[in-house]
């Protein structure tokens, strides 16, 4: 379970997060949407332990982040973070790197090797398993990074933009189904930031919408529809919540110029 308690943060003067409270129970997948620069990556960074918030705190499975060495190590064993732009060792093969990541999380060797084979099959990387990562395309590298997060078997996953970075449609679909299955198995808690509404509609149990450093809404898709009175798709709900004047701005744009 992930519990974000009254988190506020600012890098300089402008608040990036303001009094954020979130609760993601085990077996749930929460998708975070928001305008560009709304603070999605910062919020994920706070949850993942990449940065300490200016105020508030995060609890993972009831243990407070950075409260003690033991607590933090315990959390690190249970949590994996997929960064928006991960860095991979170019001269290692995919399999070598995935083995190293699995070993970092103390995954049993036999299970790890089997898991790697299955993941490579899911993401059509079987032929790239034994070639250096530098030989892979950007999309394939993104797939490898996703495999790296999944191979850890960490029960808490924090994924920043997992569907972007050149993934092909079948990989997006495969990843979506995989995440949904993992969450519904009841053993995983997943938080992800994404801007792809179709996939979010498919996989997310709850959707949190960030705007102006705050959570504007956090509910199921049906709950968001009820809250906004919009029976349309997720982009329409998002537009109504975050940018309600978009249509007006477009109309203004196409009006004949005064001068």
């Amino acid at each position, binding site marked *: 379970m992930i519990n974000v308690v009254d988190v506020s943060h600012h*890098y300089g003067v402008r608040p990036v997060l303001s009094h954020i409270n979130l609760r993601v129970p085990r077996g749930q997948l929460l998708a975070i949407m928001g305008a560009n620069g709304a603070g999605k990556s910062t919020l994920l960074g706070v949850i993942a332990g*990449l*940065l*300490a918030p200016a105020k508030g705190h995060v609890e993972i499975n009831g243990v407070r982040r*950075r409260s003690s060495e033991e607590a933090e190590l315990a959390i690190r064993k249970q*949590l994996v*973070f997929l960064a928006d732009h991960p860095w991979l060792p170019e001269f290692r093969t995919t399999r070598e790197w995935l083995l190293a990541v699995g070993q970092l999380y103390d995954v049993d060797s036999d299970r790890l090797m089997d898991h790697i084979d299955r993941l490579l099959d899911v993401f059509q990387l079987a032929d790239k398993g034994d070639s250096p990562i530098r030989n892979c395309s950007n999309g394939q590298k993104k797939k490898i990074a996703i495999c790296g997060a999944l191979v850890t078997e960490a029960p808490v996953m924090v994924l920043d933009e997992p569907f972007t970075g050149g993934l092909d449609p079948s990989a997006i679909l495969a990843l979506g189904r995989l995440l949904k299955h993992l969450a519904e198995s009841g053993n995983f808690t997943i938080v992800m930031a994404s801007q792809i509404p179709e996939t979010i509609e498919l996989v997310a149990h709850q959707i949190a919408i960030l705007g102006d450093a705050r959570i504007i809404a956090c509910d199921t898709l049906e709950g968001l529809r009820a809250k906004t009175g919009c029976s349309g798709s997720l982009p329409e709900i998002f537009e109504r919540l975050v940018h309600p004047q978009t249509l007006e701005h477009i109309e203004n744009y196409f009006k004949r110029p005064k001068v």
Partner: protein
Amino acid sequence: MRTRLPFHSNAVWPSATLVIPFVVIYGMLLVSIWMIAKGNSSAFGTVFNATEITTMRAVILGGAAGVYALFRVTRFHPKCNPAYAVWLKLSPWTAGKPLPLGPIHLVWQDLAVIALLSLIASWRGHVNPALPAMAFGLVYLAMMTILLPFLRQWPASVALGFLWPALALPEIKIETVAGIFVAIAAVIWFGHWKGLRAFPWNAGADVQRQNGSIWQTEIRVEPVAAVGAPANVGWPFTVLGPKIQGHSISNRTAFWLSALFGWWCFCALRFFQAEPFPEIMLVLAIPLGLIRFGIYCSGVVPPFNVWGRIVSGRLLLPGYDKVFLTPLAAVLISIAGAIVLRRCGDWYPAAESLGIALIWFVFFSGGPTRKNWILTGQHRYRLMNQSRNRQLMRQV
């Protein structure tokens, strides 16, 4: 039929690769002298005893003894020969048995070699016959001392760290020097005896635990087979993985290391009869503080910038600013120490050494520990320049 192996210490005779260069070099010197003397035996004696020739002979003979000592340690110690150590590990050899390739302790063959060199030195006089023995002894003891930390024999290493510099103390009596050398030899013997008993050494962490290591590997990482270390696993695993590379220093280690550095300082001050320079503590504390700060803050930045601190009214961030405490304390101690040192007169070397030991102790043991800082500090991880990494990281 069972073949009887020769007595193992026969192997310590210097090899042809050592003997031939020595014979050639020394022979060339003699031939040169003979040619200068134009075959005249009385002229030969005059040239042979010239200061320059005597110096050259001393260098060649002392060098030969030193090289032989180097050969004795590097050729026969398993720590210097990884392939030999691997072979030993697979063999039924145990610490109680003689080393198969030859002993690392001194044997009668060593005495014979040194005696021969001394004989050559004493031929027609002018080169001290004790020179080869002194060169051999010094190089042998120094090499054996250098090996001890690699064998993780920390108590013996620290003891030698105290004993060797003591030889530099002025006005030391010859009996004391002899006593120190005896102590050095005893500590080396004991250290290597323990080191060989701890064989095989490859299980680094296990050996450390068995030997009660000085360096506590509190957050040591098991070898990550394929990639090598978490530092090479890529962002963000490097900083957020459950295993972190790094060492923390226990208070006991901090105490002994600080005492050692203080002692070295004391010996150096006495040896050079240096003029009082109380500010040396500050000169030491500031770079050390910067180095410590650099180590702690490599890859992390404050959670928000100075403007953020001013605007939010949180000028002090205890969770982050604790990293400044130890360097600040060391600088303050050095300032106070400099003031005290100006008033301590003849006690200056002792007081200065004590101050320097104290500064080192503060740096080694002052909080937060690196592990604590990495795991609980209120900082923000920053993506470092991964291209410097030998794995050549690339952004996806």
